[in-house]
């Protein structure tokens, strides 16, 4: 718990006074790792946006249900019109994978945004106000950090009488709240004692203006890095919740985590591709976000400035 905290504080402090500057951006543009991450992420986002247009078939239409015989262990593989075969309900797997990009992005982005918003609110308040408010909020955040993340997500998701897409998103996002809160507070604290904020204070600039114009923007670098990395972990964590039966109980929804969780426990010996394709998709996308986030972190790291 201590070192997780310290690491976040370090990250925050390391980039205090530095935003995603042009210099960091230029350094990223030269790094093959950053480019790979950006390309994967870019393609994924494009795919997610245009998936319904590209998908050759309706991902929800059980067009081949007749040829699926689960009792005999038969789920048809690739055939004309169905390049990757069909799933256990006779739906076109390719179309489901394509449209799944959209749903997966929604889960990842929404979970990250909710966590980010709550984290900024808590951490920003603690960092800007200080005093007992800071102590109380951070104590609370530390306790949340002291629960293993999957366990925290499980306990939140288990609260829902009827799980659905949103309970998963909220469960996954709550795990990220303490991380963002710590990060933002650390950055704000480092900012508060930094020279340019002292300068602004001594010039009589209003407190609100200082916080909004001088402190927040400079604290954003590490937050953006963390958000990018969180996108990856959120998608994986959502898949784990689906696997544990805490996901959307509607098995028709095309979301990679759901497809993977469903197929890997039931159909691996019949048609492993049903699990492998969404798994590969998740791995690639998570890798893309991780590469992008890590290279941003590296570009922002003052140790690498020469």
């Amino acid at each position, binding site marked *: 718990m201590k070192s997780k905290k310290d690491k976040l504080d370090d990250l925050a402090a390391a980039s205090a006074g530095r935003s995603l500057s042009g210099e960091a951006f230029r350094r990223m543009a030269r790094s093959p790792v950053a480019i790979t991450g950006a390309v994967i992420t870019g393609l994924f986002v494009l795919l997610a946006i245009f998936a319904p247009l590209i998908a050759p078939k309706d991902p929800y239409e059980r067009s081949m249900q007749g040829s699926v015989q689960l009792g005999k262990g038969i789920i048809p593989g690739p055939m004309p019109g169905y390049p990757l075969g069909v799933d256990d309900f006779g739906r076109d797997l390719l179309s489901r994978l394509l449209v799944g990009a959209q749903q997966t992005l929604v889960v990842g982005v929404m979970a990250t945004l909710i966590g980010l918003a709550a984290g900024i609110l808590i951490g920003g308040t603690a960092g800007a106000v200080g005093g007992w408010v800071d102590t109380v909020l951070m*104590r609370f955040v530390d306790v949340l950090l002291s629960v293993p*993340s999957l*366990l925290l997500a*499980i306990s939140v998701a288990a609260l829902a009488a009827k799980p659905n897409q949103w309970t998963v998103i909220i469960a996954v996002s709550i795990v990220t709240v303490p991380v963002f809160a710590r990060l933002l507070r650390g950055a704000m604290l480092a900012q508060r004692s930094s020279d340019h904020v002292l300068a602004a204070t001594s010039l009589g600039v209003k407190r609100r203006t200082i916080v909004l114009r001088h402190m927040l923007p400079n604290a954003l670098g590490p937050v953006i890095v963390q958000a990018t990395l969180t996108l990856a972990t959120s998608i994986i964590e959502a898949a784990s919740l689906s696997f544990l039966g805490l996901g959307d109980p509607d098995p028709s929804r095309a979301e990679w985590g759901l497809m993977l969780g469903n197929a890997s426990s039931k159909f691996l010996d019949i048609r492993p591709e049903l699990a492998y394709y969404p798994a590969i998709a998740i791995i690639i996308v998570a890798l893309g976000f*991780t590469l992008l986030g890590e290279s941003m972190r590296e570009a922002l790291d003052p140790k690498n400035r020469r």
Partner: protein
Amino acid sequence: MLRFIVRRLLQAIPTLLILSILVFAWLRLLPGGPAGALLGDKATPEKIADLNRVLGLDQPIFVQYFKFLGRILTGDFGSSLASGQPVLSEIGFALPATIELSVGALIIAVGLGIPFGYLAARFRAGILDNAVIIVTLVGVAVPVFFLGYFLQDNFAELLGLPSSGRQSSGLDATHVTGFAVLDGVLTQEWDAAWDAIEHLILPAIALATIPLAVIVRITRASVLDVLNEDFIRTAQSKGLRQPTIRRRHVLRNALLPVATTIGLQTGLLLGGAVLTEKVFNIRGIGYLLAEGIERRDYPRLQALILLGAVVYVVVNMLVDISYGIIDPRVRVR
């Protein structure tokens, strides 16, 4: 040193107290409240009202909390809805399997993580380094449960390893401690011990991937940091032999952050164990948890969440204390 340990122990108390408040609140956030959770599917408004009186849920909230606190401090977590047994004995029964699995995973993660991380740093930007970086990046991107099924499906047969459970059914191993491997060794039933180890291999690999990836990366980064330190240059200027420099100056310093990481990852193993045990059908804590989720067995879930958090807090405390022992700078602070 003793004062440092005592202080660190005292620091954990408020965390644990707040944690108990959160779990207490969690129980009240459940659909139908604690009574509804206890009754499960059988809940009707009348039954809930009855049970509320019996449980003292009509009393003031802080009275309820202190009663709750008193109960969990004496180890009374109620009875599982699924099995009807006291939750605590369920946990006691399942714990050895999870500990065994976690130890196996840790041995893999630490045993491979530190050497590979060190070698990657030493031969920075070489083939091994690049391979290690790629493997660790992919390692954290693979969902644990998928990896479990993947190993089960593709490697169990290939390597002749069992893919489910803790022991083969034909063996009638003597039950002493509940730790299958340890029991086999204690009773000198070597075939039983070996059988238990074989059962552990695949799930331990699956559970080890994420900690392994993290430990490799931290070790690598930490060694690189230390290699740039001034005191390494001093050591070189003394003309010390390379092995002395590596062991005494590089590793000794580089392993400090790694120790913290190992602690953190140990605390996190329970999360992965939920997934791994479900995949490999190992009746440990994670299995209890997964089953508890399926059956909405709230008394069991409550106990397990509290247990998981307490283990994590305690492990971190131990890490801090051991840090104080290996790093002289922490002690005097």
